[in-house]
């Protein structure tokens, strides 16, 4: 938590083009995203004194230091993949609040289409050519030793298990679950249509098309799953004293949490479902620190590796009671006309999969009034990914 007063502000956002297929390296894309974020902020590379990245990123700090000529006094990494999106803000705020840094760049660069495919298992098991046994290592699901031998190999398959458990505990039929999840996919595709950055901006999706999508890992279909894409995104976090000297107001980080408790690491199957009491406790503490309640939030950016994560996130962060979000989402969707627009860029399902960093850039744009799908009442925005989350405000 950063406390009730914002200790840091987001003063710049930037991204590379998002695509499915690129001849540019993750290194080049990271440099482009960071350069754009600094230009957006009105800052120079010489102003940067801190870097925060995902531990999964292949573009390490030294590579950016060289390419941008940085001289920094602080760097850190967030773990567990997509939990990093809100967590980078916790790191940056901690650095700024403690005086370790004054301008911290957070970035993620992922060629998830041309290089590291998160929808597949070669990145953990190897390519499987030949007849040698493939060794599943570690104790995590998917792909670890207690999951891989059973063919539980991808995040989407784990989330299919979440979805079925949700269906059963909510008492839903297959059709009821499909209609709720379909509304998530369709609403986000509607947002993508107005977002020039969105990879699927020209691909319309309606319920018949959603339901006709082939089953990948039942009950999840093709359009329940995030895109694989190439791209990078970055945000610049600055101390209030730095932000005050810039040409336009920064976006305040009212609170940030990088939560972890037993089995809350990404894509776990052994602990409580991600709308459970421990997740709700994290949300309660975050909103308390920010001096807000869920009803004050005008846009939620909820980590959407799959559609079910959106229902779980809406419940974990207090917008609905557990196993109730499906009803409201089925009725109203999460689109422009819904009570709480969610993933207004199109999100991972329809904009691009930048491991949550693209959710941060959209959250900042909503707070600035600059989103391609700007909500009419500019106000606090939640960014969440399981037990990590942040609240931003103009």
């Amino acid at each position, binding site marked *: 938590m950063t406390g009730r007063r914002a200790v840091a502000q987001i003063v710049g956002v930037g991204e590379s083009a998002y695509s499915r297929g690129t001849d540019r390296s993750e290194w080049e894309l990271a440099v482009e995203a960071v350069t754009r974020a600094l230009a957006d902020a009105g800052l120079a590379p010489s102003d940067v004194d801190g870097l925060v990245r995902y531990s999964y990123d292949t573009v390490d700090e030294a590579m950016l230091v060289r390419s941008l000529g940085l001289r920094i006094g602080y760097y850190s990494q967030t773990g567990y993949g997509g939990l990093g999106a809100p967590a980078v803000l916790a790191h940056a705020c901690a650095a700024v609040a403690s005086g370790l840094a004054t301008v911290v760049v957070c970035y993620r660069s992922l060629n998830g289409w041309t290089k590291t495919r998160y*929808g*597949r*298992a*070669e990145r953990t*098991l190897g*390519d*499987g*050519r*030949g*007849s*040698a*046994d*493939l*060794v*599943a*290592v*570690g*104790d995590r*699901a998917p792909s670890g*030793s*207690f*999951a*891989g*031998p*059973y*063919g*539980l*190999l*991808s995040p*989407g*398959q784990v989330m*299919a*298990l*979440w979805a*079925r*458990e949700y269906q*059963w*505990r909510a008492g839903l039929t*297959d059709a009821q679950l499909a209609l709720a999840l379909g509304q998530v996919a369709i609403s986000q595709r509607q947002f993508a249509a107005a977002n020039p950055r969105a990879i699927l901006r020209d691909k319309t999706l309606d319920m018949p098309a959603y339901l006709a999508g*082939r*089953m*990948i*890992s*039942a*009950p*999840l279909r093709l359009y329940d799953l995030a895109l694989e894409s190439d791209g990078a995104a970055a945000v610049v976090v600055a101390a209030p004293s730095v932000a005050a000297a810039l040409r336009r107001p920064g976006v305040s980080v009212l609170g940030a949490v990088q939560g972890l408790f*037993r089995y809350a690491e990404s894509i776990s*199957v*052994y602990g409580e479902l991600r709308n459970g009491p421990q997740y709700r406790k994290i949300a309660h503490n975050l909103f308390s620190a920010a001096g807000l309640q869920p009803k004050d939030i005008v846009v939620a950016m909820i980590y959407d590796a799959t559609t079910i994560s959106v229902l779980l996130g809406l419940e974990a962060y207090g917008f609905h009671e557990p196993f109730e979000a499906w009803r409201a989402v089925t009725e109203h969707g999460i689109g422009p006309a819904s009570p709480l627009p969610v993933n207004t860029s199109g999100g991972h399902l329809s904009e691009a999969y930048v491991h949550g960093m693209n959710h941060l850039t959209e959250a900042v744009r909503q707070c600035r009034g600059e989103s391609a799908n700007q909500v009419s009442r500019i106000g606090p925005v939640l960014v969440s990914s399981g037990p990590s989350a942040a609240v931003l405000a103009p």
Partner: protein
Amino acid sequence: MTSEPAAGRIVPGESPLTAAYWAAARRGVILLQRCADCAVVMHPPEPVCPGGPAHELRWFEASGRGRLASFTSVEHAVHPAVRGRLPYLIALVELDEGPRIICNLAPDPSGSDAAAGPGPGTRVVLRLGRAAGGLDLPVAYLAAEPAADWQ
């Protein structure tokens, strides 16, 4: 159907912590850890009891009985090693001893209502069978008993 070379099996990486587990699993038996001091039961194995680092964790043979907390039918192969096994069922089983465990779910031999699949709380028994990765390990079979109370 495919010209890809035959892929190997997917086997568990073993360590001193898990060697006993896998030796038993290859015989179709699930070993769980129980703390001799605070009775916590754990899976996957850990080196230290969360109730206290001085506590003594001991292996015991699980009953192999439990209920389905969830399952998925995998219809798209995310790796060549499982391409020839589609569709296959992955179960999340809540063992009667408490912990959750991942395994495969053998298809319903009756074939009845196969499209609908098993329902909430369906009782299962784990015994040796062919796992989707090609190794013989404990897998879940539907038990001839009524579904457990759910929720």
